[in-house]
């Protein structure tokens, strides 16, 4: 080897080693974060943050089905007991009697701090008289049967006030003593994993522990009864684990299939093992460089990125195919400038993805840029030095010559392309109403049945998707609670006037300390209370002596400690507070979910009234329509993708103009690409596919990849006729490799990967064909070579 060749190999080996170390040390994630936006409004950020890290992100709803209600209840109770001892779970709730009793006891013990009815007026003589009189009336009614046990300790009816304010609609149903679906066919458990939402390993361990505990609990029943019971679970941890498993297996499967197919293709073409191995060097280098670049810039590599990387195999292999097939020519002077411009246009296209709000997309952009540059550099600086003096590759000149003849034969038919363009445009126009899939779910790797199960279990558990939320934010927890308290008062007026059906607030479970202190201050000391009671009870059928327990409880509440979030720990009430009081990177937020009357949708007028009631200061309380936000988020994605694709196309055109100095040549290069995009869009829509963001990105990739073919045809039209056959042959082989890689991707079960594949695979093929047809007759500089 000559000096520069040795140097090239050494540099390559060193860089490959560094990249390998970086790739080996990188963290690989497969959670759902790639589908969440990085740029968003403050409230959207809050929601996304909560989706990733909040209490909702580690909530599992499990349903035990089969057998009969008592058996399910027995297993539910035993399973809950087993899981409560497992450190993987922060809380386990199944609604069994002990738990309900604990909840009720907790509310009762703190009733004077929790009841909104506790005011100084209530403990005056007239206040006591009215409150106790009301309680006696209630005792005489059917509801009174609920209250009898509490009466001597709670004659003013604070417990009833609390129960009324909490509302019963949120609690799941009960069957045979444990939580159940409303139809009574499934026992329900609500669990919270200790691992945070971002810790997919921890989530997986918890999911497996749950499954193991269920199997063990069930086995006590004996094999025949045990077999009848099934456990189904859902929730963000389950989704995270499932999507990671899917992505992992998909990436492995797709890259294996893709590698095998391309290797088979190259082996069939070259009939030479050394040639095959040589083509794979740039591919492997590209993959390493891509992973290392993403790991260095993003901190972690997403599984989806590796999935996209499958396509890189098909592209990175192109350069070495050009090198090997056209190796007789002067690679450095004749071929390299075209490849270099091709790499530059592809990089322009992928660079447009870098600013994307999708982590997955921007990683794809960086991965591909680094990979393509690495593949091209290895092909240019390393591979030529490794080429053996005699490399026995099948001569493709004859094939190429045949291709050239065929091409010339069909070229006159290229006017038909206009018909094709008009046809595709017509299809798109006819479907213009339903062109886009506007559901964010279209991007989710979670299959529809799993989403349906999730919705069913959430409905069963009385935790349906909330649509309207008022958010009150403050730097401190107490500030957020105080804001929520004030907003509660304003929202109560809207409930009274019928604008809202109901609302929930964290202050129902955890009032701000100032409010708790005020309630404590409303309670009179024992001597005063006893004296006032005597007077208040004068014409009521209760003896003051009977209410001794009441006086004791009031004194205990008056002098006892205030309620803190630590007191709530482990109870279902804590779950409510955790869900409604969020600690994010920007402080604390209290959430007040609203329930609209009737259909569940607030009218524009109602929204206006709620906003007006919240006041002008948006920081104190902001109304969020979660469905509206999601729609907005998605249309934002879509707009951004279209804008980025447009920018990518623009950058490619400018680059070509600068490099070629000829608008006419640029037009001949760009026209087939635009036509290919149009036809693919027409095809997809014609076959009933609704377009997603990934289709838009795919169209950008058609331009980025297809521009390479167009550039080669551009070059071939100016070169000697003797080179045309080999150029055609190498283009065809390179194109087949790319189409294979994207074709494999199109078969993926992960929608984002499949959408990309089904766009680029036909698009790349069409780009080649159209480029061939639209280019000037090849080999023009040697007249007589072509007709």
């Amino acid at each position, binding site marked *: 080897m000559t000096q520069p060749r040795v140097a090239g190999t050494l540099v390559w080996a060193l860089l490959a080693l560094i990249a390998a170390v970086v790739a080996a040390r990188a963290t690989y994630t497969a959670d759902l974060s790639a589908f969440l936006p990085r740029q968003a409004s403050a409230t959207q950020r809050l929601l996304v943050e909560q989706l990733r890290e909040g209490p909702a992100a580690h909530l599992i709803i499990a349903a035990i089905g089969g057998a009969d209600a008592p058996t399910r209840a027995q297993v539910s109770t035993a399973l809950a007991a087993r899981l409560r001892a497992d450190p993987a779970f922060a809380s386990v709730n199944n609604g069994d009697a002990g738990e309900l009793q604990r909840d009720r006891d907790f509310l009762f013990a703190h009733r004077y701090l929790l009841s909104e009815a506790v005011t100084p007026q209530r403990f005056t003589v007239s206040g006591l008289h009215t409150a106790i009189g009301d309680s006696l009336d209630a005792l005489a009614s*059917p509801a009174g049967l609920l209250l009898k046990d509490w009466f001597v300790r709670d004659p003013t009816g604070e417990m009833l006030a609390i129960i009324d304010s909490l509302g019963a609609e949120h609690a799941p149903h009960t069957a045979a003593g444990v939580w159940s679906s409303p139809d009574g066919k499934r026992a329900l458990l609500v669990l919270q994993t200790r691992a945070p939402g971002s810790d997919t390993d921890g989530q997986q361990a918890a999911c497996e522990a749950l499954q193991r505990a269920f199997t063990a609990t069930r086995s006590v029943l004996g094999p025949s009864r045990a077999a009848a019971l099934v456990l189904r679970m859902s929730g963000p941890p389950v989704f995270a684990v499932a999507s990671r498993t899917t992505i992992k297996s998909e990436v492995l499967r797709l890259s294996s299939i893709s590698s095998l197919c391309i290797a088979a293709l190259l082996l069939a073409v070259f009939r030479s093992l050394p040639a095959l191995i040589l083509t794979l060097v740039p591919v492997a280098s590209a993959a390493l460089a891509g992973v290392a670049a993403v790991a260095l810039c993003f901190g972690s590599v997403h599984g989806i990125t590796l999935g996209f990387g499958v396509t890189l195999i098909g592209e990175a292999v192109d350069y070495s195919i050009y090198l090997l097939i056209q190796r007789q020519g002067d690679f450095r002077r004749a071929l390299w400038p075209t490849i270099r411009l091709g790499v530059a246009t592809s990089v322009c296209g992928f660079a447009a993805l870098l600013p994307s709000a999708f982590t997955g997309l921007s990683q794809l952009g960086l991965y591909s840029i680094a990979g393509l540059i690495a593949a091209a550099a290895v092909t240019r600086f390393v591979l030529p030095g490794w080429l053996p003096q005699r490399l026995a590759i099948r001569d493709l000149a004859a094939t190429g010559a045949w291709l050239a003849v065929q091409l010339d034969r069909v070229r006159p038919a290229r006017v038909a392309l206009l018909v094709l363009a008009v046809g595709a445009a017509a299809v798109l126009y006819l479907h213009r109403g339903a062109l886009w899939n506007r559901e964010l779910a279209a991007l989710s790797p979670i299959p529809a049945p799993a989403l349906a199960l999730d919705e069913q279990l959430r409905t069963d558990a009385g935790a349906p998707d909330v649509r309207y939320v008022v958010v009150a934010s403050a730097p401190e927890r107490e500030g957020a609670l105080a804001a929520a308290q004030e907003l509660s008062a304003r929202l109560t007026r809207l409930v009274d006037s019928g604008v809202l059906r109901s609302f929930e607030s964290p202050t129902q479970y955890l009032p701000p300390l100032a409010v708790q202190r005020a309630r404590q201050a409303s309670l009179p000391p024992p001597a005063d209370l006893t004296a006032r009671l005597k007077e208040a009870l004068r014409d009521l059928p209760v003896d003051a002596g009977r209410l001794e327990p009441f006086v004791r409880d009031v004194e205990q509440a008056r002098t006892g400690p205030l309620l803190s979030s630590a007191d709530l720990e482990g109870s279902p009430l804590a779950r409510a507070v955790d869900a409604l009081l969020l600690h994010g990177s920007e402080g604390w937020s209290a959430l007040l979910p609203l329930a609209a009357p009737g259909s569940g949708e607030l009218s524009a007028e109602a929204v206006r009234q709620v906003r007006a009631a919240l006041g002008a200061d948006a920081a104190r309380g902001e109304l969020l329509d979660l469905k509206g936000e999601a729609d907005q988020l998605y249309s934002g994605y879509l707009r951004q993708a279209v804008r980025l694709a447009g920018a990518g196309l623009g950058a490619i055109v400018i680059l070509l103009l600068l490099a070629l100095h000829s608008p006419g040549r640029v037009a001949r290069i760009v026209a087939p690409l635009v036509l290919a995009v149009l036809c693919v869009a027409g095809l997809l829509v014609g076959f009933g596919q609704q377009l997603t963001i990934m289709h838009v990105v795919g169209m950008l990739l058609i331009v980025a990849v297809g521009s390479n073919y167009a550039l080669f045809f551009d070059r071939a039209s100016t070169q000697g006729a003797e080179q045309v056959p080999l150029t055609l042959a190498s283009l065809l082989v390179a194109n087949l490799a790319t189409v294979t890689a994207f074709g494999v991707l199109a078969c993926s079960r992960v929608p984002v990967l499949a959408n990309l594949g089904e766009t680029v695979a036909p698009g790349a093929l069409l780009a080649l064909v159209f480029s061939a047809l639209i280019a000037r007759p090849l080999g023009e500089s040697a007249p007589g070579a072509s007709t």
Partner: protein
Amino acid sequence: MSRLALALICALANAGLQAAATAVAPSSLDQLLQLLATRQHGHVSFTEVQELHMLQRPLRSSGELLYDAPDRLEKRTLLPRPETLLLEHGVLRMQRGQHTRVLALQDYPQVVPFVESIRATLAGDRAALEHYFTVSFSGTLEHWTLELVPLEATLARTVQQVRISGERDAIHTVEIRQSDGDASVLTIGPTVEP
């Protein structure tokens, strides 16, 4: 909750058992149940007296009961303060002032046998009735008493005995004796004319 269920039974029993006369001469529980089951609709007034050990005087309430076969029952308390209790298709709706509380009966399994006993009584289904209670019939069809003693342990803890008495197809009183000594007596008044 079981006491709520008892209130329900009272109401159900009262409205349901206010049955139309059929001129047979039954001499057994079966014959009484057959007689009562023919009733499709009822609208009567009631008064209720509850003796609670912690109060010096009994609590009195009164109002109206409405029944439509097979599973709709409404207890409208008018005094001392208006309150409505509606049982329909297994869902209990309690309205008092601005508050409405909704309970699904199956969420309170201890209630179910009571309701089932009434349903069974109205349907003349003695087997179902005896699934939950020891039932004893005494007296004659002209002047009868049904004594229901809960079989299930959870019910017996709060309820000792339910005693329903009447003449032919008309119920006069429903007495509920609770385990803590408290008792209530619901007395059915005349039919309210529509």
